[in-house]
């Protein structure tokens, strides 16, 4: 188990800068997620940590060991590839035992450790199977066992669940977290599935165009996004253009004037000090609005329902609000009845903790 330190890491492919001066510290035993849209550089970063790419600038440390120039086979990372990369000319047992053979362990030790690893992923009954006789989920578990069995310094997972069906993905999520935590492994997990990241990660980073947009716990990133792109990428948000009027009574809170009325909200970016009259955006999540019967004093929208969408656990409404160019989306958890679209005017209130003021 190691901590991983990344300092000023830059990787270019020709003219394209894939990773821009990245700095990151991943703690011992942490389950760290790299999240981002495709092409953002998350797989590049993972492959650089594994040693398949050489960074153009910057350093990479495992604990205090500088591994920047160390070849992949001497890094003791274990990677689960997106395609699994199971060797088709070997059976399950041979695949899993390969890494231990490289460490020249005695045959008896190898056998007991492989069997233990296969039991952990519930594949012990399939040890002599050929790879092409396994289903996608079984292959995924063999790939995981092959990586776990070597007791790596850190575990690298490259979208390991992307080829599985929804049900299996749910099961494997918690399974991977359980296994990593039991073994105390430092783990880096690449995915573009935000539900996967939010539900499993200790901490996560959102990558955008080769740069970290934000790093933090799942709750920090969801509750306190520091930029519009983070707020957009994780979950859904309404964005309202406005101007700073004055500091609110609570420290760190400000009153903001918008075309829909005045809102009180908070600042999430610690490096930013707003000035009077600054143009800002408010980010308010749909579930932070609550339908109320009577018109509130502040921090609310009013409008007619133009559209709704029923998703089972919740229902989305789109309110046409006077003065706003885009409709405001609000959601209600498992409502008894669905309000119809029409001319009736509704009021939706929000709390100031749920209103994020973003520096455009």
């Amino acid at each position, binding site marked *: 188990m190691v901590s991983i330190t990344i300092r000023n890491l830059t990787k270019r492919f020709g003219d394209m800068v894939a990773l821009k001066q990245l700095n990151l510290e991943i703690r011992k035993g942490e389950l760290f997620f790299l999240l981002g849209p495709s092409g953002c550089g998350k*797989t590049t970063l993972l*492959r650089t940590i*594994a*040693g*398949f*790419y050489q960074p153009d600038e910057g350093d990479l440390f495992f604990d205090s060991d500088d591994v920047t120039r160390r*070849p*992949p*086979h*001497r*890094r*003791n*990372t*274990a*990677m689960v*590839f*997106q*395609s699994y*990369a*199971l*060797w*088709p*000319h070997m059976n399950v047992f041979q695949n899993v035992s*390969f*890494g231990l053979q*490289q*460490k020249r362990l005695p045959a008896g030790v190898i056998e007991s450790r492989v069997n233990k690893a296969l039991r952990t992923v519930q594949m012990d009954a399939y040890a002599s199977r050929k790879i*092409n006789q396994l289903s996608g989920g079984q292959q995924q578990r063999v790939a995981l066992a*092959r*990586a776990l069995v*070597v007791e790596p310094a850190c575990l*690298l997972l*490259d979208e390991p669940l992307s080829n599985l069906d929804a049900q299996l993905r749910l099961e494997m999520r918690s399974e991977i977290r359980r296994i990593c935590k039991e073994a105390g492994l430092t783990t880096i997990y690449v995915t573009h599935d935000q539900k996967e990241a939010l539900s499993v990660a200790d901490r996560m980073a959102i990558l955008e165009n080769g740069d970290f947009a934000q790093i933090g716990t799942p709750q920090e990133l969801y509750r306190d996004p520091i930029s519009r792109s983070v707020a957009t990428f994780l979950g859904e948000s309404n964005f309202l253009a406005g101007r700073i009027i004055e500091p609110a009574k609570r420290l760190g809170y400000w009153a903001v004037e918008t075309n829909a009325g005045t809102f009180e909200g908070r600042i999430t970016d610690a490096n930013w000090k707003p000035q009077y009259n600054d143009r800002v955006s408010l980010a308010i999540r749909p579930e932070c609005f609550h339908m109320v019967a009577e018109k509130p004093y502040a921090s609310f929208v009013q409008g007619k329902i133009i559209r709704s969408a029923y998703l089972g656990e919740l229902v989305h409404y789109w309110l046409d609000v006077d003065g706003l160019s885009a409709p405001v989306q609000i959601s209600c958890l498992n409502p008894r009845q669905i309000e119809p679209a029409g001319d009736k005017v509704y009021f939706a209130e929000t709390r100031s903790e749920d209103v994020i003021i973003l520096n455009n």
Partner: protein
Amino acid sequence: MNKVRYDGAEVILVLAMAFFGAFFIFPVLRTVGEAFYVDGVFTFRYVMDVLNDATYVEGLGNAFQLGIWSTVVAVLIALPLAILADRFEFPAKRLLTTLLLVPLVLPPFVGAIGIKQVLGQSGALNSLLSAVGLADMNHPIDWLGQWRFGGMVLMTAFHLYPIIYLNVSAALANLDPALEEAAENLGCPPGKGFFFITLPMALPGLFAGCTVAFIWGFTELGVPLVFDFTRITSVQIFDGIKDLGKSPFPYALVAVVLTLTATLFFFSKRLVGGRDLSSSGRASVGRRDARPLRGVPMRACVAFFIFIIVFALLPHAGVTLVAFSGDWYLSILPSSLTLQHFQEALGHPITLPSIANSLRYASLAMILNVVLGVAIAYVIVRTKARGREWLDVLSMLPLAVPGLVLAFGYLAITREGELFRWLVDLPPFIPKDSPILLLVIAYAVRRLPYIVRAAAAGFQQTSASLEEAAANLGAGPITTFVRITGPLIAANLIAGAILAFAFSMLEVSDSLILAQEQRFFPVTKAIYILFGSLGNGPFLAAALGVWAMVFLAVSIIGAGYVMGKKMGALFRV
């Protein structure tokens, strides 16, 4: 994936089967039949006699050795080349890897003319050795006599190594690079990972190439003929033509050869077919670039490529020099150079007509090949027509049947009073004894496996859903093929067609046996006849050979550029 059932599939299947039945199975059975039905009586006597005859057994032994050793040498040449080209980046890589393929289409039979000039008793090598005082021209070394078998092995191996090179390159290129990265990631050093992970998975490709190369070497006719080596099965069969229709022995010999090659073919298809690992698909992750070589390793690598290319092309360089030489006797290089032979070749009654004939035969064969190949590949890959597995096997079988066997079969089925007599005598379309139809069919059947493989690879790489999308938008099967599938598999088809054309132009066995009248001679037969004639014949043969080589070298380089690494898909069993 659901395959759409097409109505035309069964029709194509039946037509293709009928074609194979008439022009492949039937002639082969006729040939083999001659060995078993003698004077209306079924007998194993002649086959047993062949197996008990010391001369024939020796011939089979020699053929077997030629096949094995030329395959072994070809692997030793091709494997390192393929690995170097896959792993490393070095100057002029594209040019060198393309030039590597050139020997494939240059028939060793033509090259052998050059080899004799270089290695003959009064040839260039002896002259060179005596010039530096290592040999005495009064007692010249008989290289071809003493080293005849080794020479034949080298000639054949340097002709066949591109087949193995192409197979291994394709297998390496198709592997998911993550498979080797996974090994490195688990602590396996790069070199070791290559041997334990990548190489085993490239083995089916290597083995497929070896099978084709072995059958080729085992039944090679041109090289032993030029080396005057008669104690080998192919030449024994060829000489059997002289008493055709009288002795059943050549036919019995053919039956034995066919049994051996077909057994090997099926054995290898079984072995390889079950574990085609290279098609497991590539991951989306970018491959690490081929590592650039610098300094001494780079020079050694480039030198190795150049050495192989130069050595493989040495006989052909010899032919070229012969074609341009005024006089080349007892000297290292020709004492004078001239264009005279090319001028004389233009006026000679055999040369120009033979070029025209070959172009005609080869183009027609190519068209027939493309039409048949695409249709068959389509049925095999895209439809569920019953019996398509059989068609698949059938379309690969010509690889297992030596050209000689088929040529004999064609002779047998077109004799006076036979079922297919009209193929060589159909006035007013086919003048009497014109082999045009027969040669076109023979060329087409022999090269069909390559075209079918090329087209099938194209169909496999092109997702059926692309066609379904077109059908879904209202395009009929023909529109879909012309607008969608055709353009997508065009590269494969063009390369396959070029190769089929090139191989047909330089086909030896069928050409030598089926063209009996001078005015119908194809190029190879003209070269063979000229080479054996007196006077300036050999020089004219060389001039004609040079013309053919230039033509074919251009073809194969073109095909190589169109197909790239995918060309290996053509030379599989």
